[in-house]
C-alpha cells in the first residue's frame, strides 16, 4: 500500500490526490447559484400547488387585485405535456403537464403560477386563491393502488400499474426440489427525498440580441434539458440556451425534466418577462421527485451449507403520480430486479418487477437508483440463509460470490461483470472491522446493557454504462457517450469544454488531472467549462456514476491528439525529431533543451509561419468517447459495520463503519474517499432516518426538517475506507464509476447489524428507515407475544 500511495502523490496526473480547484470559490462564498442571479425586471414566482392528493378541479377563484398576476394552464396552452414512455411492452403513459387543469394527482401538483416583485408577495397571492375541488379517494399506498376497484390515478388506465416486467433465468422447479432450505423474506424500504443543500430553481428570460430564450436551471444535465424543453415549448433548440450555474448538490432529483422548468420557461416567453422560481425546503420535501419506496417478497433456495441455488423475487415500487422524463416510472423497479443477484453467482433467478401509480409525488432517480433496494433485499436474505443453515453470514456471503477467475462473468440478469475480486474485498472488510473481536465482545456483553451487532453487505455497481445498456432499458434518450473540446489559448493555457455538469464531484479538478496525464500541463493551467449549452459541445450531463469515465475518456482522447500536435510543433521549434521529444511541466523537452506551451500556442495561433510544413494552425481538438464495451464497468464493495442497539429506547448507534471498495483506477483518491463517505452518510439516512410517510388522505406527513430527519455530524461515524484497484478492461485508464456506491450498501449493512444485535431477543427488522420507534415496536411486540 505504501509504495502505491507514493506513486499516487507524485505529480498531478491520474492517481494524484490534487486539492480541488473549485473549492476556492465555494469556500469564499463566491459560487453563483440560480438564487444569486439578477436580471433587470425579474419577477419572483410562487406556485399554487394542490393541497389535496386527488381531486377534480372545479374552479380556482383569484381575488380581483391579483387577476393579472396569476396564470393557469390555459395561459401557456402552447406547451406540450412531458411524456416519458418506456419501450417496454404494455407501459402505460402519463401526461405530465406544466400546469394541471383537470385534476390534481398529488399534494404539490402544480395548478397555477403566481408572480410578484418578491417571493413573499407571490406567496401571499397563492394563499389568497380559493380552489374548489371535487375530492376523490386518494390512492395513497401500493396495496390501495393494486385493489381491482381502486380509484384510477389516470382515468383512462385499466388499472394503476405503469408496467410489470419479468425475468426468468434457469429452471426454478429443479432448484425447489434440490434445495435443503427455503428462506422467505418480506421487506419494505421507505419513501424519501433527495435533500440537496440547494433545492431546485429556474430563471428564464429572453435575450433580444441573440433572439433566444435563456433558461438557468439547477440541473444535472443542461444539454438534455434543452432538447426536451425545446420540444415541449415548440421552439428550435437553436433558439434556446440552458445554463446550469453552480448547482448545490443533485443526487438524482435534478436529473429529470421538471414541469416547473417548463412552466417558468413558457410563461416567461409568453409574458416576455424574466421570471424566477426558487424551490424552498417544504416544496422540496413534498413535491420534488421522491426516492425509493420499494417492497420485496423474496425466496431463496439453498443447499445445506447455504450455497444459494436459486432466487425468486417480487419487487413492487410506488412510482407516484407521473412518469418522470427521461427515466420513466419503470426505472426503479427494473433496475432493482435487474441487479438483484449482485456479487453472487446465483444461476437460477426468477423475478417480477411491478411499478404502480399512486397519488404521491413522482418517483425519480436518487443516488444508487434501484441498487440500494436490491442490495437491501439480497443482503438481508443472505444473512437469513446463513441463519437458516446455522453458519456465519460472512462465510456464506463469501462462498456464494462470483470467483475472480470467473471474470468476465455474465450474471443471471445478463449483466457483464468486467473485472474484480469480490471475495477478497469482503475478506478485507471483515478483517478491518475486526470480525473476531466483535464476536468476542458480543459474547462478553456490554456494561450498559446495549446489544452489539455486526453486519456486512456487498454490491456491484454498474457504472458508466453506454449505448447497449440504455437501449436495453428502452429510454427516450440513449446516453452513449461524452464529448470534450480541448482548446489552448494563444498564451498557452488549456480550456476543457465538457458536456457533464459538476455539482460537487470535483470534476473541475479531476478532468484537469486527466489533461495533465496526457499533456504534462500543470493542473493550475487548465480550466474546465461545463453546464452551459451554448459553451460546451452537446453532452449528457452528470448522473449514473458516469462522468469521470465518460468525460475523462473524452478529455483523454482530445488531449492525446493535442499532445501529438504539440510534439510536432515543439520538435520543429527545437529542431528535433518528433519521437525524441517529451511533454512535462508545460514544456516540450528534448535533452536539456525545451520550449514552453506558450511558445507552441503562439506559433499555432499567432505565427503560422513558425509551424512545420503542412501543419494546420490553431491548437484545439474536439473528441467524443465511448467505453470499449457499453455494458458498463462494474465497481463493487463490501461495507461492514458494528452497531449498538438500546433495547430500552430502540436507539441505534454506529460504533464502526468500514468500506472496502474497488472502482478501478482512481483519478484522485482523496476525492474518491470523500465521495464514498458522503454516499455512506446519505445511505445512513435511508437506513435509519429519512422518510415521508403518507396518511390515508394522501397527505405527506413529513414536510419540514422537524418531521423529516437527516443524519447530522453526530450520526455519521468516522467511515474508514479501504481501496482496491482492479482496472476495467473497457475504459480509458481502467476507471470505473463510483459516485453512487457509498449510498448503496448502508440500508443493507445497518439492518443486518441491527438484526444481528437483536438475535438474543428473537426480533428482526425488515423495513427502512429502522427508526427507534420501529425497532421498539418489534421488541415490544415480541415481548407481548411471549407473555403467557
Amino acid at each position, binding site marked *: 500500500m505504501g509504495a502505491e500511495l507514493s506513486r499516487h502523490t507524485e505529480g498531478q496526473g491520474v492517481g494524484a490526490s490534487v486539492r480541488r480547484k473549485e473549492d476556492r470559490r465555494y469556500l469564499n462564498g463566491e459560487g453563483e447559484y440560480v438564487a444569486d442571479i439578477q436580471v433587470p425586471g425579474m419577477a419572483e414566482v410562487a406556485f399554487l400547488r394542490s393541497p389535496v392528493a386527488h381531486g377534480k378541479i372545479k374552479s380556482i377563484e383569484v381575488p380581483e387585485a391579483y387577476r393579472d398576476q396569476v396564470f393557469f394552464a390555459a395561459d401557456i396552452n402552447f406547451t406540450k405535456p412531458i411524456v416519458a414512455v418506456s419501450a417496454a411492452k404494455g407501459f402505460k403513459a402519463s401526461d405530465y403537464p406544466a400546469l394541471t387543469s383537470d385534476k390534481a394527482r398529488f399534494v404539490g401538483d402544480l395548478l397555477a403560477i403566481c408572480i410578484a416583485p*418578491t*417571493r*413573499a408577495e407571490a*406567496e*401571499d397571492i397563492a*394563499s389568497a386563491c380559493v380552489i374548489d375541488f371535487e375530492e376523490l379517494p386518494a390512492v395513497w399506498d401500493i396495496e390501495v393502488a393494486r385493489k381491482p376497484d381502486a380509484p384510477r390515478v389516470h382515468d383512462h388506465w385499466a388499472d394503476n400499474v405503469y408496467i410489470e416486467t419479468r425475468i426468468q433465468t434457469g429452471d426454478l422447479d429443479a432448484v425447489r426440489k434440490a434445495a435443503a432450505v427455503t428462506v422467505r423474506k418480506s421487506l419494505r424500504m421507505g419513501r424519501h427525498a433527495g435533500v440537496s443543500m440547494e433545492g431546485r430553481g429556474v430563471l428564464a428570460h429572453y435575450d433580444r440580441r441573440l433572439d433566444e430564450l435563456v433558461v438557468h436551471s439547477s440541473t444535472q444535465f443542461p444539454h438534455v434539458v434543452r432538447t426536451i424543453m425545446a420540444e415541449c415549448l415548440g421552439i428550435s433548440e437553436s433558439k434556446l440556451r440552458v445554463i446550469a450555474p453552480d448547482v448545490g448538490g443533485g443526487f438524482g432529483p435534478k436529473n429529470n425534466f421538471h414541469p416547473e422548468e417548463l412552466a417558468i420557461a413558457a410563461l416567461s416567453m409568453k409574458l416576455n418577462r424574466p421570471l424566477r422560481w426558487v424551490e*424552498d*425546503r*417544504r416544496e422540496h420535501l413534498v413535491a420534488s421527485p421522491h426516492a425509493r419506496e420499494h417492497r420485496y417478497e423474496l425466496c431463496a433456495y439453498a443447499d445445506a451449507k447455504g450455497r444459494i441455488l436459486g432466487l425468486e423475487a417480487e419487487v413492487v415500487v410506488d412510482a407516484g403520480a407521473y412518469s418522470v422524463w427521461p427515466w420513466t416510472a419503470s426505472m426503479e423497479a427494473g433496475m432493482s430486479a435487474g441487479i438483484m443477484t449482485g456479487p453472487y453467482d446465483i444461476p437460477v433467478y426468477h423475478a417480477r418487477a411491478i411499478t404502480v401509480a399512486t397519488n404521491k409525488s413522482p418517483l425519480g432517480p436518487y443516488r444508487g437508483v434501484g441498487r440500494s433496494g436490491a442490495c437491501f433485499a439480497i443482503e438481508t436474505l443472505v444473512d437469513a440463509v446463513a441463519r437458516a443453515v446455522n453458519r456465519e453470514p460472512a462465510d456464506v456471503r463469501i462462498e456464494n460470490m462470483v470467483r475472480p477467475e470467473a471474470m468476465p462473468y455474465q450474471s443471471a440478469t445478463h449483466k457483464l461483470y468486467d473485472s474484480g475480486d469480490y471475495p477478497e474485498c469482503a475478506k478485507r472488510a471483515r478483517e478491518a472491522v475486526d470480525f473476531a473481536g466483535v464476536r468476542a465482545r458480543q459474547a462478553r456483553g456490554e456494561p450498559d446493557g446495549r446489544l452489539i451487532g455486526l453486519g456486512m453487505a456487498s454490491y456491484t455497481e454498474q457504472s458508466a454504462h453506454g449505448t447497449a445498456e440504455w437501449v436495453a432499458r428502452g429510454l427516450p434518450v440513449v446516453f452513449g457517450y461524452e464529448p470534450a473540446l480541448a482548446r489552448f489559448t494563444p498564451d498557452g493555457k488549456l480550456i476543457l469544454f465538457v458536456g457533464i455538469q459538476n455539482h460537487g464531484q470535483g470534476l473541475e479538478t479531476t478532468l484537469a488531472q486527466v489533461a495533465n496525464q496526457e499533456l504534462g500541463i500543470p493542473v493550475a493551467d487548465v480550466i474546465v467549462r461545463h453546464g452551459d449549452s451554448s459553451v460546451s459541445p452537446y453532452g449528457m450531463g452528470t448522473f449514473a456514476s458516469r462522468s469521470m469515465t465518460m468525460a475523462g475518456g473524452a478529455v483523454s482522447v482530445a488531449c492525446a491528439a493535442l499532445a501529438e500536435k504539440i510534439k510536432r510543433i515543439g520538435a520543429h521549434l527545437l529542431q528535433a525529431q518528433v519521437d525524441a521529444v517529451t511533454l512535462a511541466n508545460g514544456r516540450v523537452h528534448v535533452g536539456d533543451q525545451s520550449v514552453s506551451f506558450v511558445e507552441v500556442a503562439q506559433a499555432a495561433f499567432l505565427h503560422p509561419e513558425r509551424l512545420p510544413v503542412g501543419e494546420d494552425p490553431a491548437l484545439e481538438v474536439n473528441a467524443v468517447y465511448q467505453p470499449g464495451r457499453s455494458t458498463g464497468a462494474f465497481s463493487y464493495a463490501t461495507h461492514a459495520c458494528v452497531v449498538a442497539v438500546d433495547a*430500552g*429506547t*430502540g*436507539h441505534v448507534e454506529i460504533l464502526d463503519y468500514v468500506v472496502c471498495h474497488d472502482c478501478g483506477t482512481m483519478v484522485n483518491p482523496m476525492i474518491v474517499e470523500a465521495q464514498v463517505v458522503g454516499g455512506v452518510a446519505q445511505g445512513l439516512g435511508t437506513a435509519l*432516518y429519512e422518510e415521508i410517510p403518507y396518511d390515508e388522505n394522501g397527505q405527506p406527513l413529513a414536510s*419540514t426538517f*422537524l418531521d423529516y*430527519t437527516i*443524519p*447530522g455530524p*453526530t*450520526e455519521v461515524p468516522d467511515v474508514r475506507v479501504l481501496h482496491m484497484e482492479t482496472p476495467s478492461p473497457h475504459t480509458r485508464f481502467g476507471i470505473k464509476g463510483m459516485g453512487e456506491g457509498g449510498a448503496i450498501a448502508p440500508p443493507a449493512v445497518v439492518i443486518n447489524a441491527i438484526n444481528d444485535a437483536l438475535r438474543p431477543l428473537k426480533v428482526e427488522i425488515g423495513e427502512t428507515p429502522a*427508526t*427507534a*420507534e420501529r425497532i*421498539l*415496536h418489534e*421488541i*415490544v*411486540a415480541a415481548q*407481548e407475544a411471549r407473555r403467557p
Partner: protein
Amino acid sequence: MKPAPFTYHRATSVEDAIAQLSDPDAMARPLAGGQSLVPMLNLRLAPVGRLVDLGRIDALKHAEDQGASIRYGALLTHAAFEDHRVPDGSNGLMPYIGGQIAYRAVRTRGTIGGAIALADPAADWLTTVVALEGEIAIAGAKGRRTVAAADFVIGPYMTALDEGEIIEAIIVPRRPAGERWGHYKATRKTGEYADSMAIALNDASSRKVRLVIGATEGAPLVMVKTAASCAQGASREQVAAVLHEELAASGRDFSPVKLHLHRTTALRALQQAGLS
C-alpha cells in the same frame, strides 16, 4: 416559506408589551427567541397580525438570587444557563438542561420563558421546572400573578396564560444541597425534540423522591406513586411495576411503544439519581 404580512412592534418595557398584546383585534403575539415562532410564521402556520418583540426589554434578561429561590427573567437564553452566566440552585441540573437543548445556535437565541409559554410537550424546560417545583410569574393588563409550574400547562400548547399576558420570570426554589438528580432523554437524533424525557430528584437525607416524565402529549406527568415507592426503598422490579401501573392509569393514551419508552427513561433517570 415566507411569512404572511404582519406589523412589528419592538416593545420598550413589560407594560408597553402588555398594552400592545392586549388589543383583541390585533391578533398580536409576543416574540421571544423566535426559535419556534419564526419557523411557524414562515410556514404560515401561526396567524399573526402584530408581532410584539420582547427582545429589547432588559428587565426580562436578569436573574436574581432571592436566597430560598432564584428568579430567572423570561428572556434568559438556554446558553445563559449552559454557560453558568446565571446563579444555580439546582445542583447543576439547570445548566445541564440548558446545554442539551437542540443545537448551540438554537441555544444562543431560544429563551426559557419562550419555551415554557409555547408549552410544546416535548420542551426540556417544561419538564425541568415542573420537576424543580418552580413557579411562573405572569404579567398582564390586570396585574401580576404567580402560578405553580405544574398547574401552568393545561395541555399540548395550552397554558394558563390569558389574552395579553406574558411570562415575566421563572422562580425556582433552591434545592437541598445533598439532593441528587437524574435525567434521561430519548431523541431520534442529537438535537431533536424528546420522544420521552424524565427527571428524578433524590434527597436521601429527607427520604424525598420526585419523578417527572415529559414529552407525554400534554403536561409533564408527576409520578407521585412511583416516587413514593422509591423513597420507601422498593426494589427495582417493584418500582418498575408501580411505574407501569401509574403510567397506564395516567389517563394519557400511550401506545405500548410509548409506554415502554417512558418506562425506560424514568427508570434510567431514577438510577442516575442513585435510586434502585
